């Protein structure tokens, strides 16, 4: 913004301010109405939605699927949308950091004198796109599971086993379908490569770098191996 524009703005603003009303009582009235609404909504949410506790934290469980508070869903979703492991740091820290820096420095690179949203096409479009993208990612996060989910269509009898695998952290090292890392062998077709008993043995013993999952209850171990043995 040039000095001339700055001066023009200050002049114009002074006029508008003179035409305005005093903060008290006019703006104070609106603000206090809003305050009542805010407190009212919070009280209503507290009464209707409550504050139930979940089960107590148990660091030894391996089957819990973590979910953040809903306003972090979009971050979680970024993690899921971007699959290749070498891009994960970019997704989780890079993109949010870049967005934050862009947001912080906004007044320093958008310096035009125009303020009307209709006459700032780039800013307005960028703003709307950001809102749509965040809303979409939040929506995906709301309907989807956590990043430890396996996006694979399986027959209903194997759903339970899929959940066990997803919740046990196997994806940290194994790839199943679209998801997971590549430290250990790809398990997408493990059913055709290993018999069910051998799968169970691997899970119980934990070959090489793989940890032994001895704490898995027998029922879960059964579901897990049913699911893995079905992958061919």
């Amino acid at each position, binding site marked *: 913004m040039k000095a001339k524009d700055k001066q023009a703005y200050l002049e114009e603003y*002074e006029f*508008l301010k003179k035409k305005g009303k005093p903060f008290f009582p006019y703006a104070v009235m609106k603000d206090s109405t*809003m305050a009542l609404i805010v407190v009212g909504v919070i009280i209503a949410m507290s009464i209707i939605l*409550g504050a139930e506790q979940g089960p107590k934290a148990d660091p030894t469980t391996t089957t819990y699927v973590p979910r953040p508070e809903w306003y972090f869903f979009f971050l979680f979703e970024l993690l899921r949308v971007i699959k290749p492991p070498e891009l994960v740091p970019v997704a989780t*820290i890079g993109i949010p950091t870049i967005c934050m820096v862009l947001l912080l420095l906004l007044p320093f690179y958008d310096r035009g004198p125009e303020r009307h949203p209709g006459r700032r096409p780039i800013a*307005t479009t960028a703003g709307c796109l950001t809102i749509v993208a965040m809303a979409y990612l939040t929506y995906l996060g709301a309907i989807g599971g956590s990043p430890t989910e396996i996006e694979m269509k399986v027959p209903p009898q194997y759903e339970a086993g899929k959940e066990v695998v997803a919740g046990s952290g196997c994806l940290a090292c194994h790839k199943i379908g679209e998801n997971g890392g590549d430290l250990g062998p790809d398990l997408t077709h493990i059913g055709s490569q290993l018999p069910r008993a051998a799968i169970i043995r691997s899970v119980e013993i934990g070959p090489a770098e793989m940890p032994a999952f001895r704490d898995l209850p027998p029922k879960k171990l059964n579901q897990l191996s049913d699911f893995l043995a079905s992958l061919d």
Partner: protein
Amino acid sequence: MKLDSLIPAPLRKPAKPGEGNGSKNAAPADLKTSPPERPSDTERLTDKAKDAPADVLAWVDQRTAASGFLTGMLYRKVPKGTNWFYTLGSAALFAFIVQAVTGVFLAMFYTPSPTEAYASISHINNDVFLGQFVHGMHKWGSSLMVILIFLHMGRTFFFGAYKYPRELNWVIGVVLLILTMTMAFTGYLLPFDQRSFWASVVGININGTGPVVGPYLSDFLRAGPELGATTLSRFYAIHMLLLPGAIIALIGAHLYLVVKLGTTAPPWVRAEKPKIAAPVSQLDAGAEGNGAPPPR
């Protein structure tokens, strides 16, 4: 009447002739026919009591000179066209106040240790009078505060309110946004149930994947090889002391600038130009409490 003395001279109504320091001392119209009665003791006492608040305020004002600033702030003009979108900032402020008040209540019963945290929340929910209600207000209030901040940011963005001369207020706002999100993240661990525990594990690990500072950041947050007692007390201190202090200070700076610079008018409201454009210096002279920095 004495309260008038708190209003700066230009804003005060001129005293009517015959009115001295206050109406109670004014001489009756006809002194001879009705000689002044001596006020009874009770009358004098009630008079004194009525003046007490004004006396206290005057005492404080003499020592702080705050009244000039306060009346200036209260009676400053907000520009033409100011609408309901302009309440979103103060709505965020009220949500923050609700969080602060309910948070103090929760802190009275909460124990930040991995063995007792969960039980202390159960205690709040089940035994403390209105405990679950206040806990619920704190929990849902956080969501509302985040929503309100985003809406407020959207308003200032689309109205172009971040432009000259309010750039700095935008920057402070973004820092407030980051601090509020950090507040939400650190608060999420405190109930120490499965959900909060595992979400924090994942959150800390995500931090750890970041370039350069990532691993250090996650080590700092976890405060040990595993998420445990030290992590919890660290999150608690950040959530309870560090961030609220920083947020309060920054809200103070944010609001100071709002008062100092004035709020924008909606961008579609234009001033009808006077026939002959008045020079700025003249405008400035007439403007009360115009804090905008001088042009150039």
